[in-house]
């Protein structure tokens, strides 16, 4: 399973948000998309998921243009984890996850025993079996994010796209969610996720795509791509990149 983006250009009216973005992801890796707010990370994901029609270039999923794939088939290849949000109704965590299996259920039927098993497995894989019958409204932000990840797993897609899975989470929950994502990648899933935090990219990412001004500022392994210059041009702040006790590089802000 492979997602290939080539020459992708997208404009909202006159404002060009993405300009000639090209990269590939696949084969069980964790790709981090880095960039400041409003740089077009969500727009990029919208284009990959076929929700937005690009004005130039295109996205291939396993060699097929994404707009040519029917929604149900696409849902079996690509899953999406939105930022955690409060739903209108208080579904149980189990029902929320079970909804992920919809792409594998006939148009007018409900999930059966097989889908129930898949949902239970997905919940177990992210380690929240104890929450299965709790209401989604009554759990913490980190638990919600894990529920949405379990829902994406229940979709049984090979590629999962996550829009800032650690946004609005406290420090511990951020690391728990990222560890869970890293585990999934180790078992063969491909994950494309956006993040603000370069340290997360150092620790967890296999490759990094840095976006700036709608263009690809850098693409490659985190250690070779993330530099003090890159951070300063992306975020407008100065940092020192040092190797920590654990041998991984990390950013130290200069204040």
């Amino acid at each position, binding site marked *: 399973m492979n997602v290939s983006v080539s020459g992708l250009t997208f404009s909202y009216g006159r404002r060009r948000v993405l300009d000639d973005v090209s990269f590939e992801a696949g084969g069980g890796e964790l790709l981090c998309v880095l960039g400041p707010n409003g740089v077009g990370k969500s727009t990029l994901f*919208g284009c990959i*998921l*076929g*929700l937005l029609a690009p004005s130039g270039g295109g996205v291939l999923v396993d060699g097929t243009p994404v707009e040519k794939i029917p*929604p*149900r*088939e*696409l*849902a*079996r290849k*690509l*899953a*999406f984890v*939105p930022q955690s*949000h409060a*739903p*209108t*109704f*208080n*579904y*149980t965590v*189990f*029902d929320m996850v079970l*909804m*992920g299996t*919809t*792409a594998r*259920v006939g*148009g*007018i*039927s*409900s*999930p059966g025993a097989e889908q*129930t*098993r898949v949902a*239970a*497995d997905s*919940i*177990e894989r992210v380690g929240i*079996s*104890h929450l*299965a*019958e*709790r*209401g989604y409204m*009554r759990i913490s932000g980190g638990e919600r994010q894990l529920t949405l990840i379990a829902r994406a797993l229940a*979709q049984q897609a090979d590629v999962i796209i996550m829009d800032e899975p650690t946004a609005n989470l406290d420090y511990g929950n951020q690391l728990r969610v990222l560890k869970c994502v890293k585990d999934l990648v180790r078992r063969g899933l491909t994950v494309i996720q956006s993040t603000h935090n370069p340290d997360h990219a150092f620790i967890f990412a296999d490759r990094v795509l840095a976006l700036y001004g709608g263009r690809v500022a850098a693409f490659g392994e985190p250690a070779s791509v993330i530099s003090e210059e890159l951070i300063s041009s992306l975020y407008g702040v100065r940092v020192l990149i040092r190797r920590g006790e654990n041998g991984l590089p990390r950013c130290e802000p200069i204040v």
Partner: protein
Amino acid sequence: MTGGRGGREGARERESGARRRFTLTVVCLFALVILGILLSLTLGRYPMSPGQILQALRERFLDAAGGLLNRLFGTRLPQAGSGGALTEQMLAIFFNVRLPRVLLACLVGCCLSAAGASYQGVFQNPMASPDILGASSGAAVGAALAILLELDARMVMLFAFGASLLTIAVVMLVSGTARGNKLLRIVLAGIMISSLCNAGTSFIKLVADPNNILPEITYWLMGSLAKARPENLSFAVVPMAIGLAPLILLRWRLNILTLSDDEARTMGVNVGLVRAAVIVCATLVTAASVSVSGLVGWVGLVVPHLARRLVGSNYRHLMPASMLTGALFLLIVDNVSRNLLLTEIPLGILTAVVGAPFFIWLITRKRDTI
């Protein structure tokens, strides 16, 4: 790993537990509806015993079929209780007035609740009710016009039904050309068009003859099943069945529609198509209900929330539970409407009197920790 497996088994056990609870709830509700129907049939100005009712029903419906069965398979159908036969006059009352009224109360309650639950889902709004798009206001202006023109009861029903569907067609047309958030503009178009309809109804009331026409319009607007006859039942049951079937079949997909559009699409659901189908069907059953009952508020808003308390938010369970609860609710309210006082109390007044405090209780009650 073993611990994890235990967790998975546990999750599956809990899941089947939830299903057992749902099955039990639905069986209980269904039994209550049947019991309620039988009990309601005995109530009225001419009390009839359950034995008499069963006997009357058996004579009318089972004798033809039962006789055939007896002859074909040699079965012996049980005899009805020892109530003594009903007079001709009571039989006429029973079949032409009481039976259609009781059945319509169930059907209207069932449809308004199903429509309310559906609208709440597609508009992602727990405050949505069947009249959110103006189906009721449209029906009202149609019925008022028919009454003004002194058409017969049958035409009043047809006018109400037609005007209701027409109103929603206009709402969808207007919202299709408007800009901005799709859900918001449908709801806004609904508010606009129903306020236009209300203006029309007010104008008709203004010009109507205050001695005989105006009271009739006013009475229709308050909602009542007093004029329910077999022909109303046979008219309404067709669009109701046509509308309810897809709502039942699409009930799992309704869950996905309560999420954001982008989420729903990435989960493989054709959002536009499913949403349009649900709106059309919910409107159809609302129009059919309102055309025979007049304006009956609150049912479509309160009952889905009550059903959520009983079986949870999952539409797979919520839809059948809402339909049964709604049937039971309106059946009970209609019994009060026709039996409490010597004169009928309009349904709309009672549903508001019962519904509003009930809703306050629902929203202030300490939430269950499910």
